């Protein structure tokens, strides 16, 4: 069987957004939007301590 590396690459890319992050973003959507508008950033915490900080691009540039 010939391994298709482009298929493998595609699978890795598709799986590169963790399930916990998808769940948190979906359930805290409003909270995130309000936080970005008021404080300019919002941090999501993963089950293993991963921190995903979302910032408004303007705030990031400043």
């Amino acid at each position, binding site marked *: 069987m010939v391994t298709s590396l*482009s298929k493998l*690459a595609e699978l*890795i890319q598709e799986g*590169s*957004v963790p399930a916990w992050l998808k769940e948190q973003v979906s359930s805290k959507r409003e909270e995130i939007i309000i936080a970005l508008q008021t404080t300019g950033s919002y941090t999501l915490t993963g089950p293993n301590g*991963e921190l995903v*900080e979302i910032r408004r*691009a303007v705030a990031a540039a400043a």
Partner: protein
Amino acid sequence: MLALTFSILLTLYLIIPDAIFRFFFSRYVPLRSLVPTRVETIYRAVALSFIPFVISTILVFWAWPFNTYPLRVDARPGSRSADYKTVMAALYSEDMFKKNYEEFWPALNRSTRRQCRLLSWYYVLVVLEGVAFGFLSSNYGKYQKNRIYSALADGLLLPNISEWHVFLTAFVFADKKSPVLVDVLCTDGTLYDGQVTQYFLDGSKLSGMILDNPRRYDRKSLLADREMGKTVDPNAYWRKIPSANFYVFADKILNINLKSIGVERVKMFVSKSIGDAAISVTIKTGTVEESSEPSRGPAADAS
């Protein structure tokens, strides 16, 4: 004699360029070292050498200084085909060799110099091709959406790259800082996790990898606490291993669970979900659940 000449030409025009290409290509990304079939070898060599060969032939025939240097040939105009005819006839038939003995050696000398000149420029172009392809391959994540690049990658670039490089590095991501996180289950039942910083190949086989911020899962304590009737949080049983370079031998690995986080992909997902494209995302990994100290893991950023 013709068969021998054909073999030499095949080596000079296909096998050596293929080796040169792979050498320079592998400076950027590790290559697969599978043993291809003869047909695959010829297909790959022809596909890779076609463009450099055509360009070098055109240059050597018509463009200065390629048609003169290196190995200048002093001969009357139009002598090229006559020289090749003399050489080929002599190689084909011993009678022709004896008949044209006096003409043969000067013709062979000129033909050899012409061929060496062509080969010199041809090899230079193969080197440039190897470097260009290596550069393009190492930026797969960045250019893969380009239709021409995608066709090139599927046909020529990816089949030459080690699947371990695709799997254990941020190769597929546009942002090379995207952390490559793995769970590694070893044959003795121990589960480790960490960020892959380096991997090692023995030919095409994985021989080991180095994990940064490694942790070991304390399953024994989890089971003991469960037995005692405690309410347990499975994520609280990761124990930090005090090591900056934790080496895992591949022959002790039962399976690997890839948990890579693509910074660009996360940014795209979050942007789409909240309907705001003007955001940046920073990912930090490696926090220890028992510790109150802030994350010391590497950070990746997509702005």
